[in-house]
């Protein structure tokens, strides 16, 4: 298992860089993960997406479907890609500390 450094924290991540210790996620970790996904700094809009994803996940145990993400956050899909160039699944979910979305490949 690979490791990932966020400040002074060291987290286990899988090959794709998804963290494996969801409890250790915090805002700093998010920022560090974000930089790996081509996001230099997390703006308010980034946080809107990230927080939405986390809340949804904690509530339902799954990541929301993308259409729902767009609808509920008000961002169009291309705007999500502008925020997270690697996209909602690989980018936003990773930053939000969710498990790796699967199946849809």
């Amino acid at each position, binding site marked *: 298992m690979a490791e990932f450094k966020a400040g002074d924290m060291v987290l286990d991540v*899988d090959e794709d860089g998804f963290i*494996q*210790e*969801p409890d250790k996620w915090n805002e700093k970790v998010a920022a560090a993960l974000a930089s790996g996904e081509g996001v230099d700094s997390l703006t308010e809009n980034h946080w809107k997406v990230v927080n939405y994803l986390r809340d949804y996940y904690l509530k339902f*145990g*799954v990541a929301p479907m993308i259409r729902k993400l767009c609808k509920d956050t008000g961002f169009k899909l291309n705007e999500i890609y502008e925020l997270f160039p690697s996209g909602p699944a690989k980018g936003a979910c990773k930053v939000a500390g969710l498990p*790796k979305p*699967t*199946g849809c490949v």
Partner: protein
Amino acid sequence: MATETVKRKTDIGPPHYEKFLPPIIKKNYGKWKHHEIVKPGVLMHVAESGDKLFSVRAATPRLASTKTLRLFADLADKFSGGHLRYTSRNNVEFLVTDEKQIEPLIARLKTEGYPVGGTGPSITNIVHTQGWVHCHSAASDASGVVKSVMDELFPHFEKMDLPAKLRIAFACCLNMCGAVHCSDISILGLHRRPPKVNHAALPKMCEIPTTVASCPTGAIRPKTVDGKQTVEIIEEQCMYCANCFTVCPAITLADAENDGCSIWVGGKVSNARHEPMFSKLAIPFLPNNPPRWPEVVAAVKNIVEVYAKNARKYERMGEWIERIGWPRFFRLADIPFTKFHIDDFKHAGEYYRRSAHIKHMPEA
């Protein structure tokens, strides 16, 4: 050919096909009149204008090195004005306008190991998938089985000696990334043991609701292990489909001794005569026996031969079996009929025989 940084383009789509069409096609596009199969592997299409296009079809293993692609490019330059195409079943076709080039091209292809054939009532390339070459889900290898089977059936690729087209497909797991569900003969890799759950890893890696929902038979339910949410699998309800595995990386299925292949028959997709049909189970299980899968090869060959001997002209596998009836198919092919052959999924009852229409003298 150095890698230079280029401006990033997106959403340009594939090249327009017109760029790649030979002049004869551009000229006669949509104006073809009729065709014939000049000889196995060689189609002649005649346009309203009188123009003739010869397509020479050669086998490929689908898994091709760039070296081979370059060879094909070279052959196309030499014999077909630089024009070639691939078929929907992974054969390559050289688009020849100069009739005299046909024989030299065929000869050259043969020498290079890419024999010509697969047209008309023959066995053409096997549609197949990744297997152990690339996929995480594979219960068998794809390329190895295909190669072994086609080596054995090869005469039927080069000759058009069957009652009708015979289409074979291979898929390495129940996801069926190929037309396995609708082929004259299908080989399907499958698991036969319930998955194992890594309870330590699952809570970190999986969406539990997605995993629970993934099971066609409802064999998965949430469970707490060591204080953490995970799932358990009710083994008696599991028929090893691997869908939970697909959605959850903390689940594993591969089992060297219990994975293997099943054989299916009688599917088709064309609307010719009979409507499209699904493939039906012929042999529930044969072992994985690399590198040559002798049991699978023998089973497929036997079915092809029984079909070739008994079917009428133009009768696809499924049409033939429908005419003679499944009881006779099982007897002719000497395959035992077992309870595994009887459907027990959602629509099973639709396939019970609900009439007294029975052929009571199956040996006739």
